[in-house]
């Protein structure tokens, strides 16, 4: 089957089998920042933003993305112009192996877009669906706080 949707602000036509998951279709289309850590909705490495909300693309049929707006890690920043979260993740040491990072950053972005001024608990809740085995989450939380400040949120 075939649908159109917007990925990272570009109109896209996607062709796939009706049973295929958004995760697999996105990877096939070259969005390699979408990772596959469990295929079961548990680890969050496949997180993308659909219509402003973070979702797990392994638990979503690609067909469900029809006419929707999808944002992947490739769509939020570039070498020249990184997203503040990408910058603060680097600076705070929030990235070790980096496999959870794209999903983690997208979950954090969905939070900050809605709530520029989150509390520590709100940050923890926003990333609760993203597992990380390297960092113990300490520096990831720090990175989100720092980005929120840089993006103009007042710290509570």
């Amino acid at each position, binding site marked *: 089957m075939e649908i159109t949707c917007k990925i990272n602000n570009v109109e896209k036509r996607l062709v796939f089998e009706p049973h295929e998951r958004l995760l697999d279709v996105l990877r096939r289309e070259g969005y*390699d920042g979408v990772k596959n850590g469990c*295929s079961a909705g*548990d680890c969050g490495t496949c997180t993308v933003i659909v219509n402003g909300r973070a979702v797990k693309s392994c638990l979503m049929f690609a067909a469900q993305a029809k006419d929707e707006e999808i944002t992947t890690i490739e769509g939020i920043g*570039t070498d020249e112009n990184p997203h503040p979260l990408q910058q603060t993740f680097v600076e705070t*040491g929030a990235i*070790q192996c980096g496999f959870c990072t794209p999903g983690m950053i997208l979950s954090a972005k969905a939070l900050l877009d809605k709530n520029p001024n989150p509390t520590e608990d709100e940050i923890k*809740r926003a990333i*609760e669906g993203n597992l990380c085995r*390297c960092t113990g*989450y300490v520096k990831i939380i720090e990175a989100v706080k720092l980005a929120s400040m840089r993006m103009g949120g007042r710290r509570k």
Partner: protein
Amino acid sequence: MREFKVVGKSVPKVDAFSLALGKPLFADDIELRGMLHAKILWSPHAHARIKNIDTSKAEALPGVHAVFCYKNVPRVIHTSAGQGWPEPSPYDVVMFDNKVRHVGDRVAAVAAETEEIAEKALRLIKVEYEPLPAVFDPERAMDEGAPVIHDEPDCKYIIPVFYDPKHNHCAHIDLEVGNFEQGIKEADFVIEHKFKTHHEQHCSLEPHTCICYFDHAGRLVVRTSTQVPFHVRRIVAQCLQVPVRMIRVIKPRIGGGFGGKQEVLIEDVCTMLAMRTKRPVRLVYTRGEEFTSARVRHPMVMWVKTGVRKDGTLTAIQLKVLSNAGAYGSHAMTVMNNTCAKALPLFHCENIKWIADAVYTNLVPGGAYRGYGVTQAAFPMGVMMDKMAETIGMDPVDFWKMNTIKKGETSPIFKALSETGKGVEMIVESCSLPECIDRGAEIFGWREKRERYKNQPKGPVKYAVGMSCMVQGGTVPLIDMASAFAKMNDDGSFNLLIGATDLGTGADTVLAQIFAETLDIPVEDVIVYPSDTDITPFDKGAYASGTTYLSGMAVLKTAEKIKEQILNVAADMLGEPKEDLRIENKAVISSKSGKRVEFSQIVKRALYSKDQFQIAAIASELSRLPPQSFAAHFAEVAVDTETGQVKVLSYVAAVDCGTAVNPKLVEGQVEGAILNGISYALTEEFFFDDKGRMLNPSFSDYKIFSAPDIPKITTILVPSYEPTGPYGAKTVGEVNINGPLPAISNAIYNAVGIRLCDTPFTPERVLRSLKEKEKKGQTGQR
């Protein structure tokens, strides 16, 4: 303490920015034309003979290019443990066997055009099993008449050590230093306990991933998520029966390892499929396979007996260890040895006896896991220390300080045993553990909290604190070797080619810092290229907390050799003796004349103008001793006495890793290890049914912590200076995973009076122990 320009600074990880942008850097992020997808058929039985396999239907399925089983691959007995040669693990595994030894053991493999076809083909393979009796309990494995798991005649060690597979006896060593019985006689109190630790999976977010293809010369290129590229090359060549020169192993960015990728787990079959089909082949584990068909932390049963005098003198330690190796003996002996070799040097005690056995069972095989045996031993020892302190009425903080090794001291264990056998004598030349204990206790508020929690609040939740100390020696002395190569470019930048394997730990960055420090250049001028067996020199790989210390020394030596070459050219250019010249800010300056020549001028002269040559160097470093890193951990817990649930509220780790080359990365290592340790202590658990099948092979049922579960974690780095390490650095990768089990167990005891000696500390176990205590208390009152 020396001051440095680059070392000791938290420069960002050299690969962090690319990772933050989500660039395709991992093993699975490439797509090759004509690539086939491999899938493996797993045993549903814990122990069975394969009477026959019929693969004809699978082979006939359109899109299937190869089907492997024991009938059509060479039988090469080897070990999948990614260790140096000769491997200190038994040769007890083949690519495919006519016998399966655990649920999730390999039976057959398929390579097909798509994953779907491959999966379909697996369902078409007909296997006739003859189920055999199985043994799951390590305490029953050596019983007379127990099923023999490795009855194949060709299993063996290739080094001279004890091995008795006919009795499932995978390894045995014992030793005694001093006189244990005498030590017990000298004690005022003797304490004995039995402890049990459980299975644990590494849970790297990136599953095991391997893509194999041919290069222009017809050689096999193995792009794989490994901690040990050079061991992969050697073992793959062995399994495929091809020369090492036919194999090139490339390690791209790796999504976490923690020991799980110190195993040649999938590369043998993936490369074999590529070799036979002449097509690129991709093999990626599912999350479920990570649980059932990868490796785990060895569960252990431990019996500990200690003697202590009223004045706090530790007179005797006896540790008996029974390690559950599972179906294959990968890392079984070395992990077992570390329960003594790398765990017991911590203690001031003249009389130590240690008896250890590893046994085969029909469960998922053990392997390397961060902590590598020390985690297992640190638990009983940490609890025993707490109990001894309580028995003699001493604050644990004081008791630990009194009974742990100090700078300038040695332990008889160093000489008696190493991971692989005989050890090396050494003096501990750096140790800030006493300061770690003091500063940790102060920042944690140890004494205040102990005082405060003497009065518990009303209600079902009780609070308390607990502590423990730990050590972990780095590297395997006289065996581990690392090397580095560097060359200078036109602009004064350098290519640094290292065999060391960054798994996400930040090794590339730390090694670049050491290189930059030595040559007084900015880190940006060091272009790190890691772990490609065609291009980089040998390194043993990322294990035994060895990279910063050992690979770091290799890098430092390489930089020093380059420095000599630079100074030689500069001396010629300036017409001044080398002795008057020094390196500073990418230039050579004469202390006498004040004249200066830039690195870029020096290298241009060397490459283009006079006596042309490439400024380049290679250096190796052999580990002479295992540097000891220390930590003191403090945990504050809340125990719900109605549900049994334990919550860790705050956690402080004071760590001595020598010089922290990159403090932020060190903190990251500490925080990650602690949280892994806490969720292992509380929620991670393998459940097996009575047939040996794992019931919870997924992240929804095997629970690791996510962000809302974490306590407040504080890391304190208490520097020391290790003279044998690069700029005083030691190691930090593993030591901190050894703290949570004992620290939390001790805290639970202080909260509700139960000593948990079996892990994990689940709500049910806590509640049951509380009830048992209540019952005993009642009987006592009568």
